[in-house]
């Protein structure tokens, strides 16, 4: 019985933790020309309405796989829920306007990709930020 209770509580905690991940950060590689970006620029970059910063530096966003972190990121940055985001991108892609962000397989791959390609930026949970990446913007 006690074992079952612990399992239920454990699952509940896991579910809550998954439903509400920690704050997120938009990051670039250490040698990236991008030093900081505004929230508005970040929104336009991740929504495919901008592909370079005012100084002309080309910036390409990279996505995490579909899941709670990605959903939370778009909800907080753009105010759009997952259904809206998908409908939004379908309109843009099939209108020949933009190509959606490339998708990394994991947070670790985001960190590795942004260091491999200077023009890439990604988003990861704050708790995963370390010396290998530069924080451009915090999304709370």
């Amino acid at each position, binding site marked *: 019985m006690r074992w079952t209770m612990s399992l239920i509580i454990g699952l509940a905690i896991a579910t809550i933790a998954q439903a509400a991940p920690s704050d997120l950060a938009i990051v670039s590689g250490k040698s990236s020309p991008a030093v900081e970006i505004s929230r508005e620029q970040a929104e336009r970059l991740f929504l495919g309405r901008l592909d370079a910063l005012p100084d002309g530096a080309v910036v390409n966003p990279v996505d995490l796989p579909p899941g709670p972190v990605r959903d939370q990121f778009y909800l907080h940055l753009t105010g759009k829920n997952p259904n809206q985001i*998908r*409908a939004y991108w379908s309109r843009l892609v*099939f209108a020949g306007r933009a190509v959606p962000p490339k998708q990394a397989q994991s947070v670790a791959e985001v960190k590795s990709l942004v260091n491999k390609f200077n023009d890439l930026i990604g988003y990861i949970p704050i708790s995963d930020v370390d010396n290998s990446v530069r924080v451009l913007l915090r999304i709370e």
Partner: protein
Amino acid sequence: MLRWIFALLWIVIAQPARSGGDFGDWQISGFGTIAGAFSDDDSIALTRGALNKPGGGRIDLGPDSIIGFQLNIPVATRADFTLQIRAGEDDKGHVEPTVGWAFLRQTWTPSLSTRIGRMRVPFFMLSDSLQVNYSNPWVRPPPEVYGLNPFNDLDGVDLLYHLDIAGADVEVRPYIGRGRVEFAENGSAQISNTKGLNLSVYIGHLSLHAGHGESRFALQWGDAQFKQLDAALRFFGYENVSRQLAGRDGYIRFDTLGFQWDDGKWLVSGEYMKRRASRYIASNHAWFASLGYRVGDWTPYVTVARQFLDAPMTETVIAVPGLAEGVRAFNVSRNDAQHSTAIGVRWDFARSMALKGEYSRNRIEKDAWGTFFPTSFADPFALGGKTVHLYTLSLDWVF
């Protein structure tokens, strides 16, 4: 057109530094709809602006079902090629692949890009994504407005310029080109010297759209009704009327104003459109207004729409009794005026898939066929004034 699209594609593919190389990866995506429309009246059939063959059965998969694939190929640091192939029922009832998009885009600065090749005719607010039903709340864009432009393709050039005005993202889009379309019963139409300017403003949840397009316009009807009427008009010396019904000297203008609001809960949109044609088709104006509300994965919505006839193809008074009736019947068969109220619900039941159900009440105006075709041509005036109840179930997806 197809030949040079494939030539362009071949050049792109034959490049030594192609996929996964310096410029990024190829991206393949797709969309589709399987939809069945059912009306309570088997003497009529729904058509998508006569671009598909009007169905004979009571449940018709033709008007809305479509499948599309799209390929995006980066060809240089700031240049890419987009190819979209789609297949839906055509005017002869066949489902054959056609090229929807095939353009080369060059991004010159962060705010300026040009595209050359095949694009969609951007006369209306939702023209670019018209057949991607997944991106819209409804089973189909309101036909009263979207039926006013029968053209799909524009072979030409456009320019997209973005500027920031007081925090609003403004897009200016001039375009030039030409296009052609084939429609039911061996008809075809061409636009040439097409030019226009679209203006879109994005402010938070709100987007506003204004557009103006104009074009030289040619049209040939292929149906028996036209051939008989044309011969009779010429026989009785009404060549001037004949020249108002078909030919190569038309001019057409489209003006549109629209808005969309989407705050995550409420989806509100509306559009007003005016079409002025010098000859060959009627002049009309139309509008729609739509309201939806998201409750989790469910989005119930209601849409009202209306199309008005401003001027028929010909208003010349015919003194020959039987002939006058023939001209009237011809005008009626090319008059799409109607109004409708649609209620429906969209269910986003899986990632990238939506199921939609819609009921619409369509009232065809007197002396019109609305967005319908009679299944028998015995009485061309029988459709006018009819009320048609239409039920549609649609499954849409993207990948």
